[in-house]
């Protein structure tokens, strides 16, 4: 059983401890609490570099130092503190960095409210467990045989067929009925690759609908999108060795993943509001009267500084959009402002939680909206890579990883 060390402040008093336990149980993990001496807490500043006025945070830091000194205490770490607590936000981030820099134990950090449920945590905890449990599978660099990947996303369903390390067919449909959409995408990929279902040796599924379609297709691998997407991203970007950062802005949420040698080390998954997702870009395209596939090219001609826009909330973002157009702003400036706004929020909310290391790989359908990687480049000040098949990243990752199970 995978042991996840819980370093938390406020989880019990927020009434969500049972939810954290439920998420861990669902993925076959158990929570552990490394023991510390009173002296470890009182003298935490000597080892960790700081002590704060809240006792539970000092306890969390003391536990972190214990894990670094003895990594056998836990297989993974989850650092959780209350949302909106400044003191805890600083310490949460520092604990994550401390463990990441001083050990190989994977870390997840998360800020919760009393509304946080096991379901909210499930994908994150599942990814954490996967990085431990399937480390050898995640280290796989080549696809072999004939395999398929299906990514049942919140907005679109994607499928690829791979043979001998090459993508030979793709299928893409909007997600409506989850199973029907998966069948359509899969059949489209089969048709494009000139193969039949019987030719496929194994199927891997990922995305929000992974469990449902995994069962339907009798998939050999059903895996959350954080590990699968990061694998697909570094595979397609040819960045499987060394560090990399994967940014995936999806239709409903976004993910930032720090990868080392193809294996996720730390990650965040966010989506406070659709304003920081592909939904806002779709809405912008509709309001501007252009197809979403044209929005990026339009944005590249514009200057975001000519438009005041903040899509922190999709409702206020839409107001900014309408206001700017009614004030006579140019559509290209509005398009770029929308891209910049989404990128800025991912930068502020997600990328502050992972160690951004080059190459930065941007994936998912939104990465094809050219203005978005451009805006991210402007914010990060470094080149952003959009690999081929960027929108099929989850399906490619699933097809690649499931091929590793063919030999098992």
């Amino acid at each position, binding site marked *: 059983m995978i042991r996840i060390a819980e370093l938390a402040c406020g989880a*019990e*008093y*927020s009434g969500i401890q049972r939810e954290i336990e439920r998420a861990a149980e669902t993925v076959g993990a158990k929570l552990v609490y490394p023991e510390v001496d009173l002296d470890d807490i009182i003298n935490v500043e000597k080892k960790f570099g700081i002590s704060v006025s*809240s006792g539970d945070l000092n306890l969390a830091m003391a536990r972190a130092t214990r894990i670094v000194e003895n990594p056998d205490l836990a297989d993974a770490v989850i650092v959780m503190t209350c*949302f909106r607590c400044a003191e805890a936000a600083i310490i949460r981030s520092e604990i994550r960095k401390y463990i990441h820099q001083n050990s190989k134990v994977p870390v997840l950090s998360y800020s919760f*409210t009393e509304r946080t449920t096991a379901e909210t945590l499930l994908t994150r905890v599942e990814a954490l467990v996967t990085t431990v449990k399937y480390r050898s599978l995640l280290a796989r660099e080549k696809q072999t045989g004939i395999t398929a990947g299906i990514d049942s996303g919140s907005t679109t369903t994607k499928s690829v067929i791979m043979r001998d390390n090459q993508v030979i067919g793709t299928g893409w449909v909007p997600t409506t009925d989850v199973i029907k959409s998966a069948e359509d995408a899969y059949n489209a990929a089969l048709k494009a690759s000139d193969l039949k279902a019987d030719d496929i040796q194994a199927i891997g599924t990922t995305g929000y609908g992974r469990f449902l379609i995994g069962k339907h297709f009798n998939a050999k691998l059903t895996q959350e999108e954080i590990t699968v997407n990061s694998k697909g991203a570094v595979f397609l970007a040819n960045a499987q060795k060394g560090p990399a950062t994967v940014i995936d802005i999806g239709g409903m949420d976004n993910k930032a993943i720090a990868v080392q040698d193809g294996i996720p080390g730390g990650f965040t998954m966010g989506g406070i509001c659709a304003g920081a997702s592909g939904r806002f870009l779709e809405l912008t395209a509709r309001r501007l009267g252009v197809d979403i596939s044209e929005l990026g090219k339009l944005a590249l001609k514009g200057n975001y500084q000519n438009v005041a826009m903040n899509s922190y909330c999709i409702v206020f973002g839409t107001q900014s959009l309408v206001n700017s157009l009614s004030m006579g702003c140019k559509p290209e400036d509005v398009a770029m402002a929308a891209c910049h706004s989404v990128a800025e929020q991912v930068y502020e909310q997600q990328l502050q939680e992972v160690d951004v290391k080059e190459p930065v790989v941007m994936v998912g359908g939104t990465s094809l909206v050219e203005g978005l990687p451009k805006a991210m480049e402007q914010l990060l000040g470094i080149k952003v890579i959009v690999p081929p098949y960027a929108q099929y990243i989850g399906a490619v990752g699933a097809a690649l990883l499931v091929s590793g199970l063919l030999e098992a």
Partner: protein
Amino acid sequence: MAKVIIYPTTSLILADLVDRMGHKALVAPEAVRDRVTNPEIKSPPLNITPEEPKKGLKYAAVDVPSGIRGRMALIGPLIEEADAGIILDDPGVLTGCAGCNRTNELVRLLIKTKGIPVLDLKYPRDDTEARGFVARIKAFLEGLK
């Protein structure tokens, strides 16, 4: 017998002194015990559910972190019940705390602004101060009806 809220609300030293003087110490562990021993709630070990942070809205606004509101759901009613208060202004970690210093600050504020007799104390650093510490608490508690 008076009900005396103590700060830190987990201080065994203060609770013991209050009880010895024939008053009732209002302490957080009692509020926790009520939940721990309540078989109706299925959220062990403390049996605190997401309802507690909502109850805590009585003491802190919705933009205050949930952990503070959850703690206040336990400690707030104790403050309401109190006839008097004893506050240790500079408790060390060994004296006890709520785990969260923002909660500690709010608890001190609510005790001080309740309009009840409050004794403010410094933590004793030597034997002489300790004797003075106990004597002041004794005098304060004897003055309560």
